[in-house]
């Protein structure tokens, strides 16, 4: 299968840089799969799961926020967080989910509720991705 150069960065640094055959990622409009030879493209990312295929091996990751661009065949993912399934601490994620549930129950206004719900969504996403090792 043909491959394309893929670069994934977050504020914590370069997560991944190399040749990939496929990138499946959740944008604000739904899942998008990028293959080699994709047209120039840009989209905002939402909270969700990503799948990268590199040298025939699939790898899953939990993604949150940011955007993706394809320009001259080069694919760049600029994410707020991008955690590969193998590096997710499932226990910590479960703990965070419990805490978010608690926060949600105690939320006094719409803003706090929205914050707690976003937290919960991120934690649940990480839990579900961590089981896809």
């Amino acid at each position, binding site marked *: 299968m043909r491959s394309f150069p893929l*670069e994934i960065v977050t*504020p914590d640094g370069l997560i991944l840089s190399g040749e990939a055959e496929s990138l499946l990622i959740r944008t*604000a409009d739904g899942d*998008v799969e990028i293959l080699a030879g994709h047209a*120039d493209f*840009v989209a*905002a*990312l939402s909270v969700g799961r990503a799948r990268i295929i590199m040298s025939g091996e699939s790898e899953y990751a939990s993604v949150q926020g940011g*955007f993706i661009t394809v320009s001259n065949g080069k694919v760049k993912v600029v994410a707020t967080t991008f955690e590969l399934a193998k590096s997710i601490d499932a226990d910590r994620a479960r703990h965070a989910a419990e805490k978010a549930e608690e926060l949600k129950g105690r939320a006094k206004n719409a803003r706090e509720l929205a914050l707690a719900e976003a937290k919960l969504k991120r934690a649940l996403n990480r839990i579900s991705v961590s089981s896809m090792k």
Partner: protein
Amino acid sequence: MAGAGMNDIKSRIKSVNGTMQITKAMELVATSKLRKAKLRAESSRPYSTVLRDALTAVIRSDETDNSVWAEGAKEGRPLYIVIAGDRGLAGGYNNNVFRLADSLSNGKDALFLPIGKKALEHYRRSELFATSFDEVDEISVGDAFEISDLVCRAFLGGEISRVTLVYTRFDSMITQTPTYRELLPLADTKNGGNNDLIFGGEPEEILASIVSSYVCGEIYSAVSEALASESGARRTAMNAANKNAEEMISNLMLRYNRARQAVITQEITEIVSGAEAL
């Protein structure tokens, strides 16, 4: 008589020694912090480089011409985000960045967003945009997003017309330069358009998400650079202080030994002349 002078010198040596112990400890702390901060500054660099490239590609597309991000409200005020340190004793580090920020904002009806305790102190009489980011050491990615969110919303609301980031760039262990970067409005939106770009959604929405990541990324990487610069400046300052203290101690030691010899000579003279008188 000479003995009293000796005690004076002795207590001065003691006090200089005490100061030197503090400056030495501070130099060590700054060195270890510098190592960590340098690593952080370096690891945050790819994010802003990739971000800037992606942003350039998107804003050059015709779809995003005449975007609110490119124009800026006419009646809004300029905002200066000034990043300085939490503590002094870092040579000219804090003052240099303030001097640059003051010369940039001079005569304008400017708003300030100070980051770092010293910055908050410096701008306590100015009109502030937000005051809750007083510890530069504690600024996380989450905080950078919060700042970015506040700034972007105020920009869209027309409250602020331009955003300038003033911080100290980390060139090397010994050189740090105060510098600034214009974040908003976005420059260069109409040249060399790439009209083959496909937008996966509403262009303005995508642009808004990119701009908020961009502002956050720039702030976070500037904070990382500023932290490294602060430690570098402090290390240099403390190193100079140590050298000065060592020089002072060696001068004082010389004076002390001379005074001691003078006392001994005088005592011998007195004994000898006393013996002669007998």
